[in-house]
């Protein structure tokens, strides 16, 4: 192909009209990463949530899409989920100090996904804890996550090194700085999903086992095990629940909604395979009106088709 300079110039001038699809990329080339401005909101005595954007990971939101939480203790702040990048983790640490009056002294990473795990880079590895399965998953996937996050988030990721949590968390009761909480070692959203129940306030931090008014994501999901984990959480008495994504919940609505979506998703995809639909068609399925409040629903449905469809075809299409 030979492009003259004149072609390039006229092409560029005509671009807004001719190539609307290119415009976002060009716009992005002009935009620099901003700075994270997380805000803490008290949801109980000595417990704060930091809400993520209920959206896909985008350059516009710096990947700050997951919820985090602070627990105040006499030994320092416990941070549940350190965010997506070095700058994000650092901003959360600063906010924690300002909010609780104490430095972050312990970090829990709920599961391996980068929006929850990669901000661990901002902390001393000795204080960052996770389930053994989370560490193993990160050992396997974190380089790919890192590539993907740098590609999507560019400068927001600046300086973010791969930081592995200690895979030393076991289920049970823990007392730290005078605060007692129960750790639950579950799985289903991923190979290892940590949940935390704060005894003093009855606050349940679920990580991505629970989504609320934001469609669940399934890249490492085992739907059967996820449902069992939801049953465990449901059976656990709690007063308030902070999901991995979406607003906090005081009833059982968020758990039920997550379960409802997973059930619908699985049924819908199985029916799509048995009625002969292609992946594209399965991703275009009508989303029931009861899920109208779920953000990123179409986006997550299309992702889930990608994650789950080949396996369902291998199960449901007859061997020839």
């Amino acid at each position, binding site marked *: *192909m030979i492009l003259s300079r004149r072609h390039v110039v006229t092409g560029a001038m005509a*671009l807004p009209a001719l*190539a609307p699809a290119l415009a976002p990329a060009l716009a992005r080339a002009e935009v620099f990463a901003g700075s994270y401005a997380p805000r803490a909101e008290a949801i109980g005595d000595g417990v704060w949530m930091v809400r993520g954007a209920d959206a896909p990971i985008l350059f516009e939101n710096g990947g700050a899409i997951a919820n985090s939480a602070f627990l105040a203790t006499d030994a320092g702040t416990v941070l549940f989920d350190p965010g997506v990048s070095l700058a994000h983790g650092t901003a959360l640490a600063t906010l924690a100090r300002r909010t609780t009056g104490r430095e972050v002294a312990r970090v829990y990473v709920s599961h391996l996904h980068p929006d929850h795990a990669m901000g661990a880079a901002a902390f001393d590895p000795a204080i960052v804890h996770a389930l053994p399965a989370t560490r193993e998953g990160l050992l396997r996937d974190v380089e790919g996550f890192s590539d*993907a996050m740098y590609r999507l988030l560019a400068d927001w990721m600046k300086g973010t090194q791969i930081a592995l949590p200690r895979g030393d968390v076991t289920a049970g009761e823990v007392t730290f700085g005078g605060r007692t909480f129960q750790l639950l070692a579950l799985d289903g959203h991923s190979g290892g999903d940590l949940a935390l129940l704060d005894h003093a306030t009855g606050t349940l931090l679920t990580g991505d086992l629970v989504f609320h008014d934001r469609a669940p994501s399934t890249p490492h999901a085992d739907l059967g095990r996820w449902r069992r984990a939801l049953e465990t959480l449901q059976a656990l008495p709690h007063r308030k629940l902070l999901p991995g994504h979406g607003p906090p919940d005081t009833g059982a609505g968020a758990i039920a909604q997550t379960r409802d979506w997973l059930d619908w998703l699985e049924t819908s995809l199985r029916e799509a395979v048995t009625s002969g639909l292609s992946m594209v068609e399965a991703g275009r399925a009508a989303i029931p009106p009861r899920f109208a409040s779920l953000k990123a629903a179409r986006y997550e449905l299309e992702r889930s088709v990608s994650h789950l469809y080949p396996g369902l075809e291998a199960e449901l299409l007859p061997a020839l």
Partner: protein
Amino acid sequence: MKRLALLSALMGQVAPARAATATDLPTDPLGSPMWTYHAERLFADARVVFDAQVGLAIPGIAENQRVFPVMVDARAVPDVTRLLIFADLNPIPLAIDYRPLAARAFLATRIKLDQRTPVRAAVQTRDGTWHVAGQWIDAAGGGCSAPPVSRVKGDWAEHLGDMRGRTWAEGEETRLRLTLRHPMDTGLVENIPAYNLETLRVLGEDGREQAHVTVSGAVAEDPTFTLLLAGREARYRVIARDTSGREFEALIAGPTP
């Protein structure tokens, strides 16, 4: 020249003796840097139009750049004789060259993406005109240059050629879906030569070919095809052939009315 011949070979195309000149081509609404290059080679001297009747459907996100679903429904365009699927910025741009002999201008499959690229569908009608549609899709790198999952697991040979499939009645027509286990090596991964499915043919009961799909290494590992055949037959014979000359054959019962 050498490089041109190689690229043409990669595209699965015989280099046209005389290419259409860039001035004959309509301006690309996607502003792709490779539009003229591909259009000259794929469409030769034929008339080319961008046509919204060519229904190209892809997801809004390339969740897995090794397995990206593409569906082309050009049934609104009359007398389609060929249907191409290509991605401008893939190292192997042309994924599918389909001749729907006794089939509708409809095909769904999954392809690899090596970077952000336009994905296009082009159908040729009996008068020779190419009707083209396309969309940009953002994708992470490496769809074509990372080893297939079955190579990493090392079990590809155990499942090579295993097929699954079924037919469904769709109005007066037959929808056929087929999956076939194959590593679909692109030749772009170190120490793994190109090895891919080359053709997929669907024959009716009388042995006549109803659908002929030419496939390149740009189609995803363990390729999957959804076709729409005209009419209904009691049985279809599917014959796939790969670049080593291996043939994989299966019978699929027609849809129960």
